[in-house]
């Protein structure tokens, strides 16, 4: 294999697994499923972006964020604001007292578009914002905390509080944000109706391609020197510091990168689901995003994506058939994953070599030590 591919895939099995995954989502799913189910798969995969971010941040770098929903929300809201403005042209909102502004603003007696909505009339600005807004927010938060060596449990709790603040803040400013109902009834993207079947196919493929590219980028990071620094920061923070690295910068950058990925996921979610609401960014959804990652395997990029698919699919299927059993199953799965398979489905591949080729786990060499190793030494558990 060429050197570049070698950096991406440590073994032949990994490369085959990746291709198998692409065949599954690009060929088999679209052929085997009606567009309605395919659209659901697309929705699940939009959480895959968050999960990849968590693999880097949590699995590799040892920083657990319970607030990824915040960034998912930032990206999603940027996208939703653009789409909502396009859906609120003066003609289709002529029934309002102020035509031309989003309907929920009119209900809340706003008579002009708030200033921070103005730039979202432009698609290039919106796309830029989807990347930049989560990155900047994450950078500020991350820098403030990592510089003071806040980590581990403290970081988890604070990011959880951020998720709460964000959802409360959106609830409380409904004239500007749509409040609890969220931003609904999104229709077109530059005149292209995103609700038609054709559009849903297109968006699904766009989502898959972006996700695959993201996965490759993440694998590249993991397998280069930067990836090894991340693991070192996780396992032996002090030694990394003594070697001359700035641990805070490393952590902050990874946090910001994970935030950007979450933001992209949020934007893809909005395009495929057609609305955005604070119920997708609060405490519970943020923890659920961690679950997807944990079930799939917190160390493995592909594992995390598969975790998103399996957990969400299980949620849909079980809640259709046995809504009561679903919570038991989800709780039980979660406990057993943590207790018995800390590396999730990808970790199982190590135990049962025959499926190793199906689910690439670049992590096999590290699994054994992982379960018993202490997490990063920071203020939280600095005994």
């Amino acid at each position, binding site marked *: 294999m060429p050197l570049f591919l070698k950096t991406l895939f440590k073994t032949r099995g990994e490369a085959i697994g990746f291709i198998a995954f692409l065949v599954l989502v690009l060929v088999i799913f679209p052929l085997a499923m009606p567009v309605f189910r395919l659209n659901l798969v697309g929705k699940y995969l939009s959480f895959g972006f968050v999960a990849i971010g968590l693999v880097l941040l949590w699995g590799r770098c040892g920083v657990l964020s319970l607030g990824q929903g915040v960034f998912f929300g930032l990206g999603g809201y940027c996208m939703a604001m653009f789409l909502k403005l396009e859906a609120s042209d003066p003609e289709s909102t002529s029934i309002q007292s102020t035509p031309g502004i989003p309907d929920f603003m009119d209900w809340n007696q706003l008579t002009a578009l708030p200033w921070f909505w103005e730039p979202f009339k432009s698609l290039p600005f919106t796309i830029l914002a989807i990347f930049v807004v989560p990155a900047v927010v994450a950078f500020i938060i991350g820098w403030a905390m990592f510089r*003071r060596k806040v980590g581990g449990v403290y970081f988890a709790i604070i990011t959880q509080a951020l998720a709460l603040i964000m959802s409360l803040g959106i609830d*409380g400013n409904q004239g500007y944000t749509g409040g609890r109902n969220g931003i609904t009834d999104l229709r077109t993207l530059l005149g292209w109706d995103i609700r038609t079947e054709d559009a849903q196919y297109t968006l699904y493929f766009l989502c898959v391609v972006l996700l695959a590219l993201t996965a490759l980028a993440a694998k590249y990071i993991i397998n280069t020197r930067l990836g090894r620094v991340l693991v070192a920061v996780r396992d032996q923070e002090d030694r990394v510091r003594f070697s001359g690295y700035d641990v805070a910068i490393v952590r902050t950058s990874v946090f910001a990168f994970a935030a950007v990925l979450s933001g992209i996921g949020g934007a893809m979610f909005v395009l495929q689901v057609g609305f955005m609401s604070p119920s997708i960014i609060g405490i519970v959804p943020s923890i659920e995003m961690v679950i997807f990652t944990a079930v799939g395997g917190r160390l493995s990029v592909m594992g995390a994506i598969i975790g998103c698919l399996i957990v969400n699919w299980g949620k849909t299927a079980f809640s259709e058939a046995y809504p009561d059993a679903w919570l*038991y199953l989800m709780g039980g799965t979660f406990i057993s994953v943590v*207790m018995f398979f800390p590396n999730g489905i990808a970790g199982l591949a190590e135990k049962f070599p025959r499926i190793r080729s199906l689910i690439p786990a670049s992590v096999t060499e590290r699994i054994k030590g992982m379960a018993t190793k202490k997490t990063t030494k920071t203020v939280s558990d600095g005994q």
Partner: protein
Amino acid sequence: MGDYTAEELQSIFIMQGFSGLSLFSVLLLMGLGLALIFGQMGVINMAHGEFMALGAYTVYLCSNITEQFFPAFTPYYFVITILVAFVVCGLLGAFVEWLLIRHLYHRPLDTLLATWGLSLILQQTYRSIFGAREVSPRLPDWLMGSFTYGDVDIPINGVFVLGLSVIVTGSLVYFIYKSRFGLKLRSTVQNRSMSGAVGINTVKVDRLAFALGCGIAGIAGAAFTTIGSTGPDSGSRYIVDAFLVVVSGGAASLLGTVGSAFGIAQAQSILEFFLEGTKGKVATLLVIVVVLMIRPQGLFPSKVRSH
């Protein structure tokens, strides 16, 4: 506020002070059990709220039983029920420690995930047993009135919860710093292997401490039935507040928990008075987050810890 007389302002001032105190006692009760488990043992118990809900459901059950079989006992049952809630939650806590927690002491972030799974299971169990509706026990009449002096009304249930939190805090402090078990607990926290070497049964210490923390959650839940209702999801409403209290207090010190509960309660109560509703809460949370960013070790960090 020019329209009000000095007397009115004075009585509002007193009542506002009391509602701050009342919120303080609520936060303190929520935080104490967690501070013990999280601060002393390093375990993040996301199911802490569900233990509170269990305490509340215990009160609800006891209230139904009392009303049905011993109606004459209704005015007094509540006090005894608090003890029952403590025991029930403590027992479940010991069981959970045996089943889950003891395997995860060396992985603090994983206890967070496992106990979150546990909280899902407990929530669904409550829903299956008690139904999805919110329930609230019929409280004795003496708890529901208020002491009135002129314009000032002081709610009795608030006084009751405040008194209870003082008693619980006092007992816990005594227990940890004066009793034999407390000595063992503190030594286990400081150096587990050394404690084991000198003959302390650290396994037993862990289990007791976890059970105690859960039991206190049960007391908190029981006390909250006087101010709110209980549903399958009630626990999740408390958990973030509880964690913020413990974390901003400096996880390892009980004094810190008391101090931060007081600070947060006063901040929230004042901010809610001058801002409106949700904005007050958001402002409070922002203040806490900023404080934590500046002082990540909490307001009252413990000085006994060492590497």
